[in-house]
């Protein structure tokens, strides 16, 4: 039978303890064991970035990390950014600037940018483009995403 381990981690501010198969990657764990289907899988080889989440403050591809490696970690997923009726400023900026179409790459884009803006409050458009160069979007041509990220950065600075 498959090998399992018990892990304890914080997901979106809530402590979770689960028995997981050692071979299950973190994205499958979040989606299947915790029902957090906002994290998407686009390539499962670490290029497309759709599965990006924040682990201990850094943007991480959850398809390239085993769930057991997240034992003790603090994890944030798109579900933590804002709710349908109370979107975060970054999420709102995505809508205002048409930074999403099909929405499939969107959670990964949001988490990459969220992690980036926390460390880089005054980015240029080129900085944003570099920051999301590990997130593929087939729909938008990226420009709306860049504009949304810049607008969100402006708003954050205004608040700070």
């Amino acid at each position, binding site marked *: 039978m498959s090998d399992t381990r018990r892990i304890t981690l914080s997901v979106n501010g809530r402590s979770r303890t689960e028995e997981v198969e050692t071979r299950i990657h973190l994205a499958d764990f979040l989606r299947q064991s915790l029902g957090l289907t*906002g994290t998407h899988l*686009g390539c499962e080889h670490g290029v497309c970035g759709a599965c990006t989440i924040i682990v201990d403050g850094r943007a991480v591809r959850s398809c390239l990390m085993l769930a057991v490696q997240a034992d003790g970690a603090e994890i944030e997923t798109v579900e933590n950014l*804002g709710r349908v009726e109370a979107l975060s400023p970054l999420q709102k900026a995505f809508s205002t600037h*048409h930074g999403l*179409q*099909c929405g*499939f790459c969107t959670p990964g884009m949001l988490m990459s940018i969220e992690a980036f803006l926390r460390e880089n409050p005054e980015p240029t*458009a080129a900085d944003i483009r570099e920051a999301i160069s590990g997130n*593929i979007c087939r729909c938008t041509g*990226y420009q709306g995403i860049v504009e949304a990220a810049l607008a969100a950065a402006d708003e954050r600075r205004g608040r700070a």
Partner: protein
Amino acid sequence: MSARYFGAAVPRLEDPRLLAGRGRYVDDIALPGMLHAAFVRAQVAHGRIRGIDAAEARTMPGIAAIYTMTDFAAIAQGPMPPMAPHPLIKTPITYHPLAVDEVCHVGEPIAVVLAGTRQQAEDAANAVSFDIEHLPAVANPIAALAKDAPPVHSGRAGNLIGTIRGGFGDSDAVFARADQILSETFSIHRGGCHSMECRGVIAAPDALSDDLTVYTSSQSPYMVRRHLAQYLKRDESSLRVIAPDVGGGFGPKANVYPEEFAIALAALALGRPVKWIEDRSEHFVATTQQRDQVWMVDVAFTHQGRMQAVRGRCIHDNGAYAPYGLILPATALASFPGPYALDALDISIDVVLTNLVPTTPVRGAARPCTAFVLERLADRIARYLKMPREEVRRRSFVTADRMPYTTGMKARDGSPISYDSGDYEKALDLALEKIDALGFPARRKQAAARGKLLGLGIASCVEDTGLAPFEGATVRVTPAGKVTIATGAASQGQGHRTVLAQIAADALGVDIADISVESADTGKFPLGISTIASRIAVTAGSSVELAAQKVRNKALKAASFMLEAAENDLEIEAGIVRVIGVPGMQVSLGEIARALSGSAGLLLPGHLEPDLAATAYFESNALTFAYGSNACEVEIDPATGDIRVTRYVVVHDCGRLINPLVVEGQIRGGVVHGIGNALYERMVYDETGQPLSTNYGEYLLPLASEMPDIEIHHIETPSPRNPIGVKGAGEGGTIPAAACVISAIEDALGQGAPFIAEHPVSPERITEWLDGMS
């Protein structure tokens, strides 16, 4: 129309849910008792299946069943029905849901493993072994046409599916009298789908009835229903097909796939829900692509640079099957003569089988290929005559005073194609002005001072949109005063909900927040065709307008009885019907809907029919033609061959804009797809048909770090061919983009540059050319 919403940059109704991670894509759906499927696929491009050994796999943990096609014999058998039959295809060249005795490309499904988890299914799939006799394979369409080429299908003589021809005028006579003739050969490669969501299917039999529900990541849920019902010999009423949130389509998800059938068959055989989610490596070998066309063409033109005629032959790689008939090559043919008023055209396209994944339309279908041929020819003529590239186009365009312009070509139903409206020269002039073509020589000099080669490219196009026959819509006001729109038109990110709600909100005088849209569920609307060919704004948009106007008229009629006022004295605002100038004399749309829902013992106001609702099917009986011109600048590093698109300007006319945010998003995404075709995307096979580019390290997609900002300027020439004056916008960005970028690359390479007749163009290719020039 009061136009409160139509034309405004309304934020999309789709967004909040998708942004909050609350989208519902196929893989997000989990049903009780659901099994997970993994396919066992062909590892060779051509082979005869002698035997399958699944004995060990069957003993592995969690395995519920392992099926091959023979296991489904009691339910259904035989090849899948063709989606688009064509007289040239006498015997359909379609897949079996699972291969029976022969596999014709790497990735073709042979068996399906059902297990408690996806991981268990994949483990067991790896343990299934085959006895396959290798047969010779053919991996490119030119080789496939050779006399001694091995057959792609062992039972089928020859690899030529057929030759389609089209044209008009007396080509021989025009060429015989022409001032000048040039001949060129083009090798055009377009990649695959690469929607960020791969395909996925869930089939769920109803425990209490014979009904089967299928969730599928598809552009064509109604086509899946039609063909699956036919295959299962069921009535369509016992089959419900739903496309939930779909993570991009771009053409290939318009097909009906063997996996959709195999998963339905497995679910019926087991009496349990079954889910299959395509992974990215499967997407590379089992989702249709576009790949190669080779064009050998002659162009006749005057000394003054007017294009007079084009003649030639194309060899089209159709892959191992023709699930979608000849739609892709036929679209290449139908895209002539582009924006140009030619005296004659004579084109033939050889549609050829290869032992590779089938080809079907990818964003733009083959329109970008035809645009590449025509635009490159325009540049070629300009270079030959030493005249500006824009001048050849100006002298060759269909002029605004000739609209509507009958091109000489025929539509799929045999009717003559005519361009409805537009000013092609104006679009080109505007593109040149906006990119500041006059200032280009100075910018080129500045780039040269930095050691870089700067080039300016231009390309023009037309796009046929609004393909017949219809997408219908029902607009209904509920007793709660809310408005629901139901349509068959499936969405894969285009923002249909928002634009359809904008149209209905204006027609009914309601707040857009009170409108909800249901689509792509055969249980919610009776008929649908497909989200393809930039057709939904024209077809579904017009149907919503017509249905909403009917509802409005019915509401006014009912209100005139309820308020005892003449219809002419009524107005609708914010969901309330008022008697103009009489405060307090009013009734809400919700109250009218309640009255028209009926109460026991009471007749309806004015003896109207029940239900404050109407359905319309706008008949899209003639194509509407969007058009545009693009201009871009490309900077090349001569040391490395690195190519950067540094500026990109689009001038685009898709008639009236329903929502500029959505239209510009379509254009930008389309342009970037075209830049990917020009510079990055290449699906590579070896000579035995083994795919060599099956991950995103080997197959490159455009990334944010390499893409420019794309500047868009609209011209709005309302189409006279539908009630809302719109033309489609889904592919106009892609169609000229590769031609525009290649035009700029050739310009950057300067005097002595080779004529570039291919794409994608890699940095290696650039350095080869530069080395050859020095």
